[in-house]
């Protein structure tokens, strides 16, 4: 037992300047990727369930491909392939200075869409067909049927699963390590290197990620219990 932990170097100032902004970035990345990923994922799910064979095929290839390649690989690919002019285009000089951070947002949106689409597909299929037929029978178009009848129920049925996947997504944001984006983990690492206390900072990182993920999953569990009563 040669490990003597010393957290005395960790002043509120360091926390405020290094860890809080890093946490905010991880959170932003999670929220943006979750919202945009769910939207894109729903679209892909609708494509997979459409009657057009070519739409089905494109969606299936997209989902299967992204689900068989590790996230780290996908992050590296996107960072390599996004042209550098793109960052200035969407973010001006801010975008130029924050390339890895922006690339991560784009990557996670497209990557998570594949996973969210599988959840949404199950959600859409959990709504009985009779409801769609009823919608058509009262003269609704396909779009109206989906928007007003099927998708709201699919979302509600799948909300706990979507949120659980989002917690996984939050943990996975640490993988932007691969392209050097300044996320929460990078914040811990930077402080650890700065004060030559890597062990303390890695342990603190583990505790912090645990607290956030665990409390979120507790909340999801509660929500699940609530939703089950409504149904």
């Amino acid at each position: 037992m040669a490990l003597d932990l010393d957290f005395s170097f960790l002043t509120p100032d360091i926390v405020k300047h290094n860890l809080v902004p890093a946490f905010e970035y991880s959170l932003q990345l999670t929220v943006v990727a979750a919202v945009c990923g769910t939207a894109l994922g729903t679209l892909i799910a609708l494509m997979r369930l459409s009657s057009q064979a070519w739409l089905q095929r494109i969606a299936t290839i997209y989902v299967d491909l992204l689900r068989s390649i590790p996230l780290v690989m996908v992050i590296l690919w996107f960072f390599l392939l996004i042209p550098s002019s793109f960052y200035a285009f969407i973010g001006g000089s801010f975008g130029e200075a924050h390339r890895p951070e922006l690339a991560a947002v784009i990557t996670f949106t497209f990557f998570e869409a594949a996973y969210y689409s599988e959840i949404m597909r199950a959600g859409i299929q959990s709504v009985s067909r009779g409801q769609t037929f009823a919608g058509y029978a009262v003269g609704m178009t396909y779009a109206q049927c989906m928007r007003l009848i099927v998708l709201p129920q699919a979302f509600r049925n799948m909300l706990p699963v979507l949120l659980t996947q989002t917690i996984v997504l939050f943990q996975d944001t640490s993988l932007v390590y691969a392209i050097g984006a300044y996320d929460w983990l990078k914040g811990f690492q930077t402080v650890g290197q700065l004060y030559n206390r890597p062990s303390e900072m890695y342990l603190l990182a583990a505790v912090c990620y645990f607290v956030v993920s665990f409390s979120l999953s507790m909340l999801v569990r509660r929500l699940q219990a609530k939703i089950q009563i409504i149904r």
Partner: protein
Amino acid sequence: MSNLLAQIKDSATLMCTSIDDPTVYPSCFAGKGDMTYLQWMIHGWGWTLLVALVALVIALALGLVIGVMRTLPNKWAVLFGEAWTEVFRNVPVLVQLFIWANVLPELFPALKQVSYAALACIGLGLFTSARVAQQVKAGIGTIPKGQRYAGLAMGLTLAQTYRYVLLPVGLRVVLPTLTSESMNIIKNSSVAYAISVTELIWTAIQAGEQASAHSTMYFVASVFYVISALTINRLSVLIERRTRFAGAMGGK
């Protein structure tokens, strides 16, 4: 179009080139003492599969024990099992690997002798064991409570009830989900590159730097990952078919 074709041809030639000098091997495989880029990438693929396999064995063994503990009629065993699952599930795998590589060797000097690849196997194995435990618990949970009581009422000990009544059914139920876990473990093993295990991602980055051809190496690595995923997918269909219960959906 011809530009793209030329690029593909260049990439193919690069893969058959020695990593030390500009020699191009027509067979794409160099003899002893030399190595082509393709061989280097295959070497990385081998490490990916090896790390994943060892981690999977650890995960299955530990996950089985922890999953069973969570169903035992003992408060402390259940609590331990739950704590184990929550800890390993709620800390990112990358953070866990950094702790295995950087923190624990400080705590236990004996670990300094252990290679990073072995530490990655342990770390990945423990991470996945939490997920396996979750599924084992769910599998045993699908069995009606009456079977457990029937076993105990017949005079079987608790261990015998698990051995002869609960586990044979429970494990058969979870086996298909476990194959998807083995696909996850191959994907998650890519994280081991961060502690310099020479697996596929690490090799792709190194080879990409050395040959100034990142996209070629990423492409080859991605193809290897897709091949691995497809193979496991085929296997899982096979396993699912073999383990289906008579009377269950699609079973004979």
